[in-house]
């Protein structure tokens, strides 16, 4: 007599649950996917797809752009490139919007997360822009593994509204280009460089301001903080606190602070030199 293990009886249920957990694809072409729309309307044309709908959450994915978006509603258009890949041209997203951009260029892998309750994304095959009139958080993490020094970097910024532009796809350099956030803004930068020999240099910077503007598209790269600025920094060569009206932080190619300009009145800066390593 053959006795079946009780686990075998549960196998069909496990398989069924597996199927139930799979994403429901509404539309897919090449590397572009619209999924988990409960209500969905779309017009498919030769040059792309115009879509609108709701889900809990719905998903939008464009592998060529390195974009994965979840939200409760979306209304937008994706355009088909001559190489058949898709990019999002214009999409209005609402409700627990979670946007993830992944990029790989010159040995640097960057994942940028944007969270907001309402987001307007516009873009092309090479560039994207997000605008949010509601509180948003940008969290961008990069790791460089194929270059010396290897590094890991995390930039987090939170504001009550703002915009940011990004390079899309696998473009070289830092994908974050320009942006602006209205306050109250909180921000932090964590950077760890590991040089040959395994010695890690860690830089941490965090603070608050009424407004934050960054420009990583032009050299020198800068972060400009305006209004009620407080910054606390700790780096390999110096640490300190800043309280000022305006602060401009100049960064190198790896977005490591190389200069801090403090202006305004009153301005209070306390710096201490770190012991040599």
């Amino acid at each position, binding site marked *: 007599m053959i006795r079946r293990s009780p686990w075998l009886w549960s196998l069909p249920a496990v398989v069924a649950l597996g199927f139930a957990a799979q994403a429901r694809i*509404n*539309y897919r072409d090449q590397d572009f996917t619209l999924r988990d729309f*409960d209500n*969905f309307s*779309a017009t498919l044309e030769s040059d792309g797809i115009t879509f609108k709908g709701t889900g809990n959450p719905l998903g939008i994915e464009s592998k060529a752009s390195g974009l994965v978006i979840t939200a409760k509603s979306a209304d937008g258009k994706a355009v088909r490139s001559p190489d058949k890949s898709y990019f999002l041209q214009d999409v209005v997203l609402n409700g627990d919007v979670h946007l993830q951009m992944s990029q790989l260029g010159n040995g640097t892998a960057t994942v940028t997360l944007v969270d907001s309750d309402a987001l307007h994304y516009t873009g092309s095959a090479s560039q994207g822009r997000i605008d949010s009139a509601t509180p948003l958080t940008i969290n961008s993490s990069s790791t460089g593994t194929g270059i010396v020094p290897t590094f890991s970097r995390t930039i987090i910024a939170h504001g009550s509204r703002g915009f940011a532009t990004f390079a899309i796809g696998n473009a070289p350099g830092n994908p974050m280009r320009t942006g602006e956030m209205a306050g109250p803004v909180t921000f932090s930068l964590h950077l760890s460089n590991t040089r040959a020999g395994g010695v890690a240099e860690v830089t941490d910077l965090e603070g608050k301001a009424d407004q934050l503007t960054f420009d990583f598209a032009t050299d020198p790269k800068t972060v400009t903080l305006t209004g009620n600025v407080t910054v606390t920094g700790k780096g390999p060569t110096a640490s300190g606190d800043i309280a000022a009206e305006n602060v401009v932080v100049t960064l190198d190619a790896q977005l490591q602070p190389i200069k801090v300009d403090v202006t305004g009145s009153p301005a209070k800066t306390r710096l201490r030199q770190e012991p040599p390593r």
Partner: protein
Amino acid sequence: MKRVALPLLVAVCALAIARQVFTYRDKSGSLTVRARSGLVEQQANNRVHLELRGSPVVLTSSTDGLTLNAPAIVCDAITKGKTTIEKAVGTGGLTALKSAASGNTTITSSSGSYTAGAQPKLILSGSVKIVDRTTTRTTTITGRNGTALLEPGSKGPGSGLRRATLSGPVRVEAVQQNTTGGRIIATGSRLEVDNVAHVVTLTGNVNVTGNQASTLGELHGADKAVLVLNSKGEVSSVRVSQGASQ
């Protein structure tokens, strides 16, 4: 020798009888019939009644631009002026060929009933296939049971198919505009072709897929899809809806 010759003679005669074909042609020459056996009965009021059997029966009305093929056809025709089909019922596997100004439509079904009028109509039963051809494209529709509304006469616009409604699992395969070999395949539970409004509407668990040469991807599980056709009958866009978005 005689033992062999007699059965051979009987077999040849039987074969000749079996192949015996009768043809009928009305005075105007617009209605022709080819059948193995049948009845042609001239009735009052300029009407003729035909009951035909063959393999198959071929009934052609050049005035209607219509040829019906079926193993059995019962037909009423109006013989006033040029003869036209008033009503015809084909059983045992029907093929209807409708000719028009710039194309033709071939409709096959298990059985079908044709009724003339301002908008000639074919009621189709069983497995149905409609091949809608013009000089520039071919659209193929399959389903089970339905109706096809045809253009009157033999010089109607397009392929001669005005509208069609099919139920059962349905499928449409159509050419996509501005592509080289691009075709759109859509499936669903019900389908309506409207060559006047230039749309094909599918409802019920609709899937739409483009072939390799198409510029459209795969669309799954929509409640409704509308293939919007250009003036040539090629698919220019697809509108879909699902859930409350309808």
